[in-house]
């Protein structure tokens, strides 16, 4: 093993093979695609092709078996990745849905303000609903705007579609809004274009149905729009400016005994899904108009 001759022979063999490799590398890089090595390669590949095909077919079951393990493990990893991605996308969808809903409500508010007959100069302050009362008896929400933003008690609050309620208490940065579906709420209203007036009161536990009471017997048709009447007299004045849409007449109860008729109204504003509202910080001036276009 330590014979000098053997060592020399071994080193010489290594040197020869290394040199041959380097010569091959150099020659391969130096020659064109039609050179000896390239031609040899093409020939070898043609010769190998049928053997490789046959061996490939013969080994396919083993390859598939081996691949099955790899695929299973890969699928497990992929499954985990996809779960994470789904979770991420769900969050994004939720955020998009929230943004879309906010946008829809804001658009509704803008449309409402542009409605013909909507009081001018009300200087609305947009606010986000940050809390809701948990019971049906007290339909109130808390908004993130308060006295620091010009919000005062008794100011009307509108939501996308129509009237939502009024401010009942204010702090520096928040305000509580009592909705028109609250048991204590009462709004003087007018049916358009008939002009019949009454008081809109809620039906507790049924926020999608308001009652217009004290409407004198007369012709009230379903589908007509109800707006705030902005009632004023020498002694009292309605808190709500004239012309704010409230809802649409959905049904009329005609009771022979009663002096007045009860008109059911479906409110335009969806009280169960209030996210963005506007506080009308100025009284504004109700526009006298015979027709109110529904939002």
């Amino acid at each position, binding site marked *: 093993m330590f014979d000098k001759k053997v060592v020399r022979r071994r080193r010489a*063999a290594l040197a020869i093979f*290394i040199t*041959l*490799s380097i010569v091959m590398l150099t020659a391969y890089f130096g020659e064109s695609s039609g050179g000896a090595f390239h031609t040899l390669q093409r020939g070898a590949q043609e010769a190998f092709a049928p053997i*490789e095909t046959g061996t490939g077919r013969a080994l396919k079951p083993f390859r598939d078996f*081996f*691949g099955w393990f790899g695929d299973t493990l890969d699928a497990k990893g992929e499954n985990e990745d996809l779960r994470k991605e789904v979770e991420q996308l769900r969050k994004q969808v939720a955020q998009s849905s929230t943004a879309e809903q906010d946008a829809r409500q804001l658009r509704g508010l803008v449309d409402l303000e542009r409605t013909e007959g909507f009081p001018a100069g009300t200087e609305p302050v947009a606010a986000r609903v940050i809390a809701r009362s948990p019971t049906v008896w007290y339909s109130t929400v808390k908004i993130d705007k308060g006295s620091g933003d010009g919000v005062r008690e008794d100011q009307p609050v509108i939501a996308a579609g129509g009237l939502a309620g009024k401010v009942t208490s204010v702090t520096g940065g928040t305000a509580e809004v009592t909705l028109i579906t609250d048991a204590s709420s009462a709004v003087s209203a007018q049916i358009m274009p008939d002009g019949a007036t009454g008081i809109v009161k809620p039906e507790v536990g049924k926020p999608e149905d308001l009652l217009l009471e004290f409407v004198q017997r007369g012709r009230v048709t379903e589908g007509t729009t109800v707006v705030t009447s902005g009632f004023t007299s020498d002694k009292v004045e309605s808190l709500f400016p004239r012309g704010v849409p409230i809802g649409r007449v959905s049904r009329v109860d005609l009771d022979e005994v009663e002096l007045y008729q009860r008109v059911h109204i479906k409110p335009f504003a969806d009280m169960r899904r209030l996210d963005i509202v506007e506080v009308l910080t100025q009284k504004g001036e109700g526009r006298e108009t015979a027709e109110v276009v529904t939002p």
Partner: protein
Amino acid sequence: MITTPGAFLRVGAIIMAAVILQLSGFGTMSFFGGHPDLVSLAVAAVAIYAGSVTGAATGFAAGFVLDLAVGATMGASSLVLTAVGYAVGRYREVRDPVHGLMPIPVGAAATLGFLVAFASVSFMLDVGASVSPLVFRDMLVTTLLNALLAIPVFALGRRVLRPALVVDPFESRRRRRAPTDSGPLGLRGLEV
């Protein structure tokens, strides 16, 4: 190794089988991005039983055939596999490893050496593309897979080469394992 036409044929058969199986079978078995590398294992197997000169020659021939079949840069694989075959052969000549699990570290080291050296040569030859750090992961997976495959590949290589070997390391181990520890003090260890 006894240099006879039969020995050449045996080594040639190992090389051809390794290259063909690698190209049409093992090369397509992807496992965590890596796949077994039968050629480097086969070269290591020949080198560990036949020595450094045969190992270097086998590495050169295997690299030559591999480059021909794949259409890669001629000489690159030969250069690296020659070094791998020589190194493994020298390891056997110097250390004479006899442990039954010897193929695992030897196979892993040979594979890692081949992959690292081949990557270096490819860099030196200017690959002309950006290289992902994932190649390191693939190298590691291939090394681990080859470590698992080393025992059967080395056993098969030994079986094929045995008739052409001057000394079979495992046979000589068995022979060394017959101590004589009885008899007169001066004659202990000798078969008398």
